[in-house]
């Protein structure tokens, strides 16, 4: 059992054209920068990407959009990306918009072996079109299915050779959920600690969910909205 791989290229070696990917992150926060770079380098096409957002023009999933590698985005919010908008309007790119909590819970459902979940989000709106509606205790809920992704690409703060992961601050977001949901889960971490180097009480994703792990390089961690206050 050896989950540790040398680098992103080796980690994504079997990602091929047409697969369904999950990519962790919220905006540019906590995105798998190294794996995305490797996918751009490899040039795989026709990807379906499940990710809360679609990056910006020149970073994150935006880099894959530039290379026209993405066939379909499944996201909750896809602003801040001109190339995205161009491809969408020209019909090159397909987009499925999903409420953010539904997106998160459909990931969790996959990792928890639940084939479907009920959520009130979108009941009575166009999101409900074609979906099963069920009333519990006087409130309408939509039946939403667990995602079925071939690969999950996630980014963690710390990891160990067993694949155990710990996330930092709000860079956690969708990462643990997608890590648990992928048929093959590839985790890149800022720091790969030796076996036993993590406190078992503090682990966010147990290694059983993680198939490959590597220490990433040169994290840019770009900030989308730099907001500050003056020293008081």
């Amino acid at each position, binding site marked *: 059992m050896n989950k540790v791989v040398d680098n992103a290229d080796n980690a994504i070696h079997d990602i091929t054209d047409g697969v369904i990917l999950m990519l962790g992150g*919220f905006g540019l926060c906590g995105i798998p920068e190294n794996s995305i770079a490797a996918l751009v380098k490899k040039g795989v096409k026709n990807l379906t990407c499940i990710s809360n957002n679609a990056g910006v023009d020149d970073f994150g999933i935006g880099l894959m959009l530039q290379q026209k590698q993405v066939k379909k985005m499944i996201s909750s919010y896809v*602003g801040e990306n001109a190339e995205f*908008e161009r491809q969408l309007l020209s019909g090159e790119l397909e987009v499925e918009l999903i409420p953010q909590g539904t997106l998160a819970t459909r990931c969790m459902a996959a990792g928890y072996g639940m084939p479907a979940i009920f*959520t009130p*989000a979108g009941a*009575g709106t166009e999101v409900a079109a074609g979906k099963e509606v069920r009333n519990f205790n006087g409130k309408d809920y939509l039946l939403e299915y667990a995602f079925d992704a071939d690969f999950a690409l996630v980014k963690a703060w710390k990891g160990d050779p067993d694949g155990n992961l710990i*996330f930092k*601050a709000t860079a956690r*977001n969708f990462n643990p959920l997608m890590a648990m949901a992928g048929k093959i889960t590839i985790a890149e971490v800022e720091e790969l600690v030796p076996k036993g180097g993590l406190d078992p009480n503090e682990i966010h994703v147990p290694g059983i969910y993680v198939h490959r792990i590597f220490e990433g390089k040169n994290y840019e961690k770009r900030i989308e909205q730099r907001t*500050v206050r003056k020293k008081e």
Partner: protein
Amino acid sequence: MGLTKEQIAQRIAKELKDGYYVNLGIGIPTLVANYIPEGVNVVLQSENGLLGMGPFPIEGHEDADLINAGKQTITTLHGSSFFDSAMSFGMIRAGKVDLTVLGAMEVSEQGDIANWKIPGKMVKGMGGAMDLVASAKNIIVAMMHTNPKGASKLLPECTLPLTGVKCIKKIVTDIAVLDVTPDGFQLLERAPGVSVEEIKEKTSGKLIVEGDIPEMQFN
């Protein structure tokens, strides 16, 4: 004559009660955090996975790993906690968030809300808005009473695609505070210097005016 965005936020802040967990949407709702009354402790929830959101960081202390749902750099406070997006919307769905404040393009007299999509325009997505409006037990809409063309945003029925149905309880606009009741928009307060007549004119949905309508108080 109407309120500024800051004043709308200030008026909404008066609805906060000690011990509330609050989710503030992007735009005017975010400003509410600047007017939390003295002695009222509220905990701000950010749906990307944080309870206990603090102010923006001091210049030079920004952390790319610490942002709010508007993707702005922020800080934590003593007592903050981080969690994943499923737990975040789990606590929202379970009704643990006491108050949600968000903007809207339209609100109907039934309490329906439209705030995510304009047909013919690029649609960016609903983000967490549909989850929030479908789940929160107490939702206040913060918005201008009319749109830039002067048309009322308080309607008998929404004309835009809905974000949620029968979910809005209260609306604070630049000219009025209103409750959404089974019978329509009940006028509670008017902005200083704004007449009931003006509010009637600018409200296209059914408006209920009972007795004297006081001016809003800001202190």
